[in-house]
């Protein structure tokens, strides 16, 4: 009898594949949702569609070339990755960077947070079928990109970071214009903060959806706005302030509930905090004179760790050098690597209509995450790698060719 009832249970479950090309997802990713009626009971995902082998290419390029490469890990966090990478290289020799460069780094990093969070706010509106939010959020994202164009000359990939400073100075003549754009933005952000308090559609679609409890956030080691929305403290900018973060005043936004609505609130309030930081940086840049680049000739052999609070959480770079002009080993761990597994906790037991906004709620970035490759044989089955055998084979190979 038991077997029969089990069979009945299995037959009620259906598999719903989402992706790899889905009209709502701008990246290629594949989810397999197991549903029982309308309720999601399990979720599985397949990655690897975006793997380009950054760590491998980085080991063949010089430090300055690698900065442009790690910038292209992700187009949205295109300051966070280079910044963590140069932090790692500066960590090896404890390189001092000029004060002006510290403020410029913080300014660019915070502007990136504004544009990334606005992008998410817009996409979240798009995912719940509320395109008005999308259009408004992206309308106000456009001036931020304009600020980037004024500062660095490009809208998206800025190429600002260098080992020992920044690549380009902020023109003092452009500061009033930048301030003017920030004035406009802060008004509009206060308006969006009011909208999420009042709007009945947003409240009914987002409150109580995809709850990630505090315990789950700690268990899955969630980082960034995902963990802060669940009430877990943790911000690299506060914990280990590098660059100008110990010189500026800002608050860490923490909410309790952990649902998508709270993630929305955290991001919008963080935009307002970031505008505050940008203002302080611009005011300091008016006063501080001096160099913005400390020309580093050599980096000695050693290991370095670089961290930065990307818009999605902590991004971590590890480098090992051998005294030449390129890295021997480069390891990248992006925030989405921690945040994506929280789907297991937040997606189970919710209706399928809410699944997509829950998946999008952590602001997953698959380009950042996919740093590994799975080896399979020609029949597309997993090939178990015997590490011991590989190691012995290599020894044998070296011994023969020595």
């Amino acid at each position, binding site marked *: 009898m038991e077997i029969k009832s089990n069979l009945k249970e299995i037959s009620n479950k259906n598999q719903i594949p989402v992706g790899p090309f889905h009209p709502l997802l701008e990246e290629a990713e594949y989810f397999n949702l197991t549903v029982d009626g309308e309720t999601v009971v399990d979720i599985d995902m397949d990655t690897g569609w975006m*793997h380009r*082998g950054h760590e491998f290419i980085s080991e063949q390029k010089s430090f300055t070339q690698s900065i442009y490469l790690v910038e292209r890990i992700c187009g949205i966090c295109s300051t966070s990755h280079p910044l963590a990478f140069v932090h790692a290289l500066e960590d090896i020799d404890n390189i001092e960077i000029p004060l002006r460069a510290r403020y410029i780094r913080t300014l660019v990093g915070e502007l990136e947070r504004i544009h990334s969070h606005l992008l998410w706010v817009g996409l979240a509106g798009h995912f719940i079928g509320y395109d008005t939010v999308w259009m408004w959020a992206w*309308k106000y994202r456009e001036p931020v990109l304009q600020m980037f164009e004024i500062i660095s000359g490009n*809208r998206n990939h800025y190429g600002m970071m260098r080992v020992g400073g920044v690549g380009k100075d902020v023109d003092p003549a452009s500061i009033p214009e930048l301030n003017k754009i920030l004035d406009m933005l802060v008004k509009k952000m206060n308006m969006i903060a009011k909208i999420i308090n009042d709007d009945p559609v947003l409240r009914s679609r987002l409150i109580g959806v995809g709850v990630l409890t505090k315990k789950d956030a700690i268990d899955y080691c969630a980082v960034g706005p995902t963990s802060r929305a669940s009430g877990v403290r943790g911000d690299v900018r506060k914990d280990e302030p590098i660059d100008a973060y110990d010189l500026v005043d800002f608050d860490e936004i923490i909410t309790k509930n952990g649902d998508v609505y709270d993630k929305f609130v955290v991001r919008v309030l963080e935009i307002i905090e970031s505008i505050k930081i940008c203002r302080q940086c611009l005011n300091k840049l008016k006063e501080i004179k001096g160099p913005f680049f400390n020309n580093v000739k050599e980096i000695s052999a050693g290991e370095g760790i670089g961290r930065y609070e990307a818009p999605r959480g902590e991004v971590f770079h590890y480098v090992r050098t051998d005294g030449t002009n390129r890295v021997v080993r480069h390891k990248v761990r992006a925030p989405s690597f921690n945040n994506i597994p929280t789907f297991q906790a937040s997606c189970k037991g919710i209706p399928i209509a809410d699944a997509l906004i829950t998946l999008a709620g952590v602001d997953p970035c698959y380009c950042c995450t996919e740093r590994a490759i799975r080896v399979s044989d020609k029949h597309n089955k997993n090939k178990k790698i015997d590490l011991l055998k590989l190691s012995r084979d290599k020894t044998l190979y070296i011994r023969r060719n020595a």
Partner: protein
Amino acid sequence: MGWYNKRLAKSLWVFHISGSPCNNCDIEILNLITPKYDVERLGIKLVGSIRHADVLLITGVFNKKIAPKIRKIYEQAPKPIFVVAIGSCPTSGTCFKDSYNIVSSREDVIPIDMYIPGCPPKPEAMIEGVAKLMEILNG
């Protein structure tokens, strides 16, 4: 097919797929339909299925896992379909050409009709690219 192309050029429907990009070109494509650029005023519409599309926008270097899927998407498309490659990645491979995991000749995966280089290309450049496509279609 001149009469057909002329009718097509009046309202191009666009489908967008991403073949291992860094996301930036994809975001800039989405940017095109938001208020500042608003290509819907030119009759260009982003559609949800390849079966409704006249133009296929493609971004990124193609990695070995995604290349067969891109081919499959192309085969599902109603012909004629015009493939526009956006960004420097499909054009030259940029910094990824040394990678072990990318397809070396992207033209073998799908035939590409038009390239819009830039990393990422500015939205104005993308609009100009599509406008040139319309010009060609109009003869």
